[in-house]
């Protein structure tokens, strides 16, 4: 025998029936086959079929052995969940690059036992079931999937997690709360910060403004759920570093100046990495603004202390009433053996109004006022207190003043209510409690008698177009001033950092706004080993911003201490949402309200106002989450898998292969039938497409083979099939999709087989039943399965009011009269088009497509499976509309052609 | 009627004698009277002079063809006298390669119905009488067609019985069985070199002698004859304890006729019942296609 046995290998693209058959046949000819399949399992569209015409074989019965033969073949290597990204070279010597998308499941360990899917809280519409049923984020497309390995759909990060300044995995803890697993939910929060309860109470929750649920009715109350996790869950974060790492890092201690949210979180993060940390706090209490800025009716001190204890539990030493001052302060720290210093002193100085009489007695800056109260110092509050400013500090001061006995509290704000930066729900609470708000008014002078404030002169303002901050510019209205009597004035117009920790000639530069200059991402200052973050660097910001700053500082310090380059290399993960059409049809469930202390109940005390969500309320609210990512990395699957096969750290990888030839078998997708409005797909519930109806028929489908129509679940007795939906149609696709006449006949037969009283009518133009035994099949459909054929192309379909039935209006060309008929269900056999991404693939492969988008075969008679490029073959529906037997023939023909091309390198090319 | 039989008997003897004259003739199998002159038994005539012992009358119950498998492969031609049911058995034996047609000299005898020695009336087995169609006999004593006999089927009719009655009937019948295996030895269809009841691995028959063991034995024996039993009822006649084995085979024959319109073993050259199938066979199992 003259054939040499080259160690050539062949690439097959697409794991449907054509690709499978080609792979087996090519392997049986001694070539090593690389079969690349985009989805997690081979099997293709045929796996979705219940039965196949004309033999009505159970599709899976004949496909499963074929899949096992292919996967088990010694010479076939499966590359599932993968795509071809590059191809270059010529016949006999192609170099291809394959992107192995990460399954987040180790194929070597996974035994397909389904424990992970049972545990997974996330449900998404199942592509395999055409969206008629849901599947979990960790899934196998269908029970008989080959390889029998699970995959996790994680296309990106949910908007809530993406917008969170600290990147807290919101979707993660929401799903865990949905499951009632509050401990695990708390653990997810503790992966980023210890402050679940704190932030859960005071966060402006930007995540909720970006929540996809907004498009349905109202966002998920994410912050309240985080708080519920803290209230009802128990979790003690531990040091993550391994013992060896801890020993190695013992010598590298870190000093942190300022025990505010930034400092504490940096300490927390560094301690978990195994570094010894000491925090120096000027004030006698720990928590910075959280402790002395936010009033305890919003954030009870025991909640804050409990979460700070978690940090201490990691070995962090916090020294209160120990300020670090002057030029020697930082130098001494280094001298005492600290290897790195973090300045997180916050912004505790109140800005002055800059108007005459400001130094009078009775004028107290908002920050000082709140701090003095928080530290327990005695404050006498005026009968009538006026607060200048529209931010949170102003509102907090107003409600604190009320609680301390002020009879009348007024907030002056120079712009209008809409521009007030304070949290809207805090402003409303203040109004509820009796605080008055005077907008478009600005103080110009403090009136005083005997050195004690008696009133304030105010001028009216009007708003002009936006100033540099994008907000409308307030302009005083000339001589519109008037006087407001008050016996206490609290300016709350901003804060600035107090930087006495830096000496005058400190090498750490400061900005003209009095903040420390530090690199925006890495928090490094100009002085080596000195870092700075938080309000001290950015000026007053929210607590969650400070948490993020703390984490970034900790990461930089960690890299600095490890001698690595200090730059953030976190990969940019895209923010993703579920497709819009998945949102239609979601039942409206309004956002959970939070029970609050009655207004009377709040008088003159600092009891917490918002009571938080109960376990039941939190779980119900968590149900509303739409799982945008969709995998939320809640790690339930990791806990459930006893083979520890789940690995969320896996990343995509690209491999290079050298092959002699490539066979393209990328199959087809269904055209979007809703494009043809007159047939009502997507609009009328009881109008479904062919493949959807196949799933309804299938014993392993969403309704176990008992067909139930979408609108009311009744089993349809009269079914209409409309052919050539989008096919043979100059507006959409001129070609005939070749298999729909037989597909409709088969489904009509099966429908009748399931329930003998089902009647089907197939509206056709030319009944194209031209294959072997096809005519007999159609005859059997008419005689034994009460299927009738009407030669007509229906004009349109409309829903019958109230019943959900569908009226089909058509002209019967044989009876030559226009008529209409009402059916329980209408099935549209829409056009079948080349699979998604075919055009780009053709460019990558360097092959041409015909005018319909199928891969063109230059000499269809002499070389039916060759493409325009030597060494590349095209088979199955990707080449032209055809049914399974023809695809299988082309697959074997491709094997023959490959052997011809690679064995003798035949000359006729 | 009597002299008609006499005439046939003489013709039989002449043909047998002529056959035995041939140099390659080994023997001629027919019947001879038993010593008490009440019944007949098979007789192997080897010399022309022995033909006078050959008889033909209404008592010729045994089936000469059932001894042919034993002679398979022996030298010389074998003559055999066969009435209707024996001929059907012969066709089955040839089909089953138990004897080669070219070694046989087949004498067809048109039987007008046998007589049951106990009752004197026409034997109940003849109620089923059906002759084979276009079988190539070497010689015949007359037209080999099914005689039109109106014979009552022997009672009891199992199908008319209720389940309990049938169960009691068989318990009482099978209690009598002493497992002497006479029914297997007499039957033309039992030609297996080693019967499964004699096997040790797997040990099918447990020989515990209880009802279970007997039901197994008789069910398996009857099943092995499904579509092969010609209805000669020799098994019942040979049974020393008078167990009504023929009812089992009859029920199977009726059922084969009703379900597959299978007329009977050895009537035509059509493939036997259980050696083939038809896609149009009835599907009485629920959930079947039809």
């Amino acid at each position, binding site marked *: 025998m003259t054939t040499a046995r080259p160690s050539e290998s062949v690439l097959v693209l697409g794991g449907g029936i054509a690709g499978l058959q080609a792979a087996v046949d090519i392997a049986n000819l001694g070539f090593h086959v690389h079969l690349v399949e985009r989805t997690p399992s081979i099997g293709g569209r045929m796996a979705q079929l219940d039965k196949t015409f004309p033999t009505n074989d*159970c599709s899976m*019965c004949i496909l499963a052995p074929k899949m096992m033969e292919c996967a088990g073949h010694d010479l076939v290597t499966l590359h599932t969940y993968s795509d071809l990204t590059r191809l270059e070279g010529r016949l006999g010597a192609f170099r291809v690059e394959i992107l192995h998308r990460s399954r987040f499941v180790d194929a070597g360990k996974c035994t397909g036992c389904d424990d992970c899917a049972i545990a997974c809280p996330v449900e998404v519409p199942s592509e395999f079931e055409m969206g008629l049923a849901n599947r979990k984020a960790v899934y196998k497309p269908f029970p008989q999937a080959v390889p029998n390995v699970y995959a996790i759909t994680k296309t990106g990060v949910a908007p809530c997690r993406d917008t969170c300044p600290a990147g807290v995995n919101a979707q993660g803890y929401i799903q865990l709360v949905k499951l009632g697993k509050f401990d695990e939910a708390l653990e997810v929060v503790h992966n980023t910060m210890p402050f679940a309860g704190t932030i859960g109470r005071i966060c402006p929750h930007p995540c909720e403004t970006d929540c996809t649920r907004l498009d349905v009715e109202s966002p998920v109350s994410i912050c309240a759920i985080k708080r519920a996790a803290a209230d009802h869950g128990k979790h003690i974060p531990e040091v993550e570093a391994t013992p060896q790492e801890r020993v190695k890092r013992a010598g590298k201690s870190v000093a942190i100046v300022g025990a505010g949210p930034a400092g504490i979180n940096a300490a927390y993060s560094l301690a978990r990495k195994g570094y010894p940390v000491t925090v120096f706090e000027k004030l006698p209490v720990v928590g910075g603004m959280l402790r002395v800025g936010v009033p305890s009716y919003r954030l009870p001190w025991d909640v804050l202390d409990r979460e700070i204890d978690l940090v201490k539990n990691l070995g962090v030493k916090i020294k209160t009433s120990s300020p670090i001052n002057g030029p020697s302060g930082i130098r001494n720290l280094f001298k005492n053996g600290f290897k790195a210093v973090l300045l997180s002193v916050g912004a505790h100085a109140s800005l002055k109004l800059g108007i005459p009489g400001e130094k009078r007695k009775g004028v107290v800056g908002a920050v000082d006022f709140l701090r003095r109260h928080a530290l327990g110092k005695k404050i006498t509050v005026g009968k009538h207190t006026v607060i200048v400013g529209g931010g949170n500090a102003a509102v907090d001061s107003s409600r604190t003043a009320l609680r301390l006995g002020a009879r009348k509290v007024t907030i002056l704000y120079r712009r209008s209510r809409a521009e007030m930066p304070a949290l809207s729900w805090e402003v409303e609470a203040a109004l509820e409690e009796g605080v008055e708000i005077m907008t478009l008014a600005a103080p110009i002078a403090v009136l005083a008698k005997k050195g004690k404030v008696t009133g304030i002169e105010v001028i009216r303002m009007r708003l002009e177009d936006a100033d540099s901050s994008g907000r409308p510019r307030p302009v005083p209205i000339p001589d519109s001033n008037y006087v407001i009597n008050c016996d206490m004035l609290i300016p709350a117009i901003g804060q600035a950092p107090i930087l006495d920790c830096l000496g005058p000639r400190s090498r750490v530069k400061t900005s003209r706004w009095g903040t420390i200059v530090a690199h925006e991402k890495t928090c490094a200052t100009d002085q080596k080993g000195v870092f700075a973050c938080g309000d001290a660097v950015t000026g007053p910001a929210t607590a969650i911003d400070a948490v993020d700053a703390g984490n970034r500082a900790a990461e930089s310090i960690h890299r600095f201490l490890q001698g690595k380059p200090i730059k953030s290399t976190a990969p940019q993960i895209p923010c993703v949402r579920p497709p819009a059409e998945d949102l239609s049809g979601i039942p409206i469930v309004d956002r959970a309200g939070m029970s609050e202390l009655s207004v009377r109940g709040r008088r003159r005390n600092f009891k917490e106002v918002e009571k938080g969500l109960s376990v039941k309320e939190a779980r119900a609210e968590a149900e509303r989450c739409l799982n945008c990512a969709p995998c939320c990395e809640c790690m339930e699957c990791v806990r459930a898998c006893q083979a520890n096969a789940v690995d969320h750290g896996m990343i995509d990888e690209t491999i290079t292969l050298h092959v002699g030839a490539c066979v393209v078998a990328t199959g087809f997708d269904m055209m979007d039938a809703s494009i043809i409005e007159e047939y009502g797909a997507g609009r009328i519930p009881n109008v479904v497409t062919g493949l959807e109806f196949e799933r309804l028929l299938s014993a392993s489908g969403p309704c176990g083979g008992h067909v139930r129509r979408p609108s009311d679940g009744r089993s349809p007795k009269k079914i209409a099939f409309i052919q050539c939906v989008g096919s043979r149609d100059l507006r959409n696709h001129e070609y005939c999709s070749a298999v729909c006449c037989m597909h409709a006949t088969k489904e009509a037969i099966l429908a009748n087989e399931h329930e003998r009283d089902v009647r089907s009518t197939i509206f056709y133009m030319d009944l194209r039943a031209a294959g072997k035994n096809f005519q007999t099949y159609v005859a059997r459909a008419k005689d034994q399965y009460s299927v009738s054929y009407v030669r007509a192309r229906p004009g349109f379909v409309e829903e019958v009011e109230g019943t959900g039935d569908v009226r089909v209006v058509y002209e019967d060309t044989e009876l030559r009269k226009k008529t209409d008929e009402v059916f329980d269900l209408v099935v549209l056999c829409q056009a079948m088009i080349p699979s998604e991404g075919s055009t780009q693939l053709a460019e990558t492969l360097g092959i041409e497509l015909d005018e319909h988008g199928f891969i063109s075969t230059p000499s269809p008679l002499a070389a039916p499976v060759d493409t325009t490029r030597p060494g590349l073959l095209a088979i199955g529906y990707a080449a032209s509309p055809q049914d399974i037997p023809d695809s299988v023939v082309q697959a074997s023909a491709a094997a023959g052609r490959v052997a011809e091309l690679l064995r003798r390198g035949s000359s006729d090319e | 009627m009597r002299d008609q039989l006499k005439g046939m008997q003489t013709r039989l003897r002449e043909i047998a004698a002529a056959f035995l004259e041939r140099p390659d003739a080994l023997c001629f199998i027919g019947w001879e009277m038993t010593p008490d002159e009440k019944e007949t038994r098979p007789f192997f005539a080897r010399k022309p002079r022995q033909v006078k012992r050959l008889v033909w009358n209404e008592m010729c119950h045994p089936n000469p063809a059932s001894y042919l498998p034993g002679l398979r492969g022996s030298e010389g031609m074998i003559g055999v006298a066969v009435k209707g049911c024996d001929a059907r058995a012969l066709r089955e034996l040839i089909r089953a390669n138990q004897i080669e047609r070219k070694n046989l000299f087949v004498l067809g005898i048109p039987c007008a119905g046998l007589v049951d020695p106990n009752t004197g009336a026409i034997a109940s087995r003849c109620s089923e009488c059906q002759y084979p169609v276009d079988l190539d006999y070497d010689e015949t004593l007359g037209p080999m067609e099914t005689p039109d006999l109106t014979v009552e089927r022997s009672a009891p009719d199992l199908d008319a019985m209720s389940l309990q009655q*049938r169960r009691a009937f068989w318990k009482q019948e099978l209690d009598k069985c002493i497992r002497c295996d006479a029914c297997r030895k007499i039957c033309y269809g039992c030609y297996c070199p080693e019967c499964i009841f004699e096997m040790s691995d797997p040990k099918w028959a447990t020989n515990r002698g209880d009802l279970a063991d007997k039901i197994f034995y008789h*069910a*398996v024996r009857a*099943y092995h004859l499904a579509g092969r039993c010609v209805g000669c009822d020799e098994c019942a006649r040979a049974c020393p304890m008078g167990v009504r084995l023929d*009812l089992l085979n009859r029920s199977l024959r009726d059922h084969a006729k009703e379900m597959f319109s299978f007329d009977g073993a050895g009537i035509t050259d059509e493939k036997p019942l259980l050696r083939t199938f038809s896609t149009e066979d009835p599907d*009485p199992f629920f959930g079947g296609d039809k």
Partner: protein
Amino acid sequence: MSDFEPKILVFACNWCSYAGADMAGVSRYQMPPNCRVIRVMCSARVRPEQVISALTQGLDAVLVLGCHPGDCHYTEGNYITRRRGIMLKNLLETMGFEKSRFQVNWVSAAEGARFAQVVREFVEEIKALGPSHVSTEKDTGTHA
């Protein structure tokens, strides 16, 4: 015979009914635990003598499962089983066994629900019938 738990033998063919049983398992269809499944390559491999032996050696019922006619991996196996089944069923009824002691049925690889339903109905039917009349009359025959 409410507390009677029948012991039932099921022969399933590798390509269709055994796969149907697997599918029932994968879909977690719950079934009474009375059946024991033995795998054969084709339903035509099941020997009628084995069925009779089972029914007389203490098993209460036998179910032979195959592919739907026309689906057989060996093209003709189930047709042969069907004809044998009809004859054996008649023989057993003639000898006093209740009709449903021996059943033949067709289950395809995807019909998990059907396998479960067939098993459930079969067990209920046999439970109603009570133990096999052969096993309850374990008297000693006349012949040791």
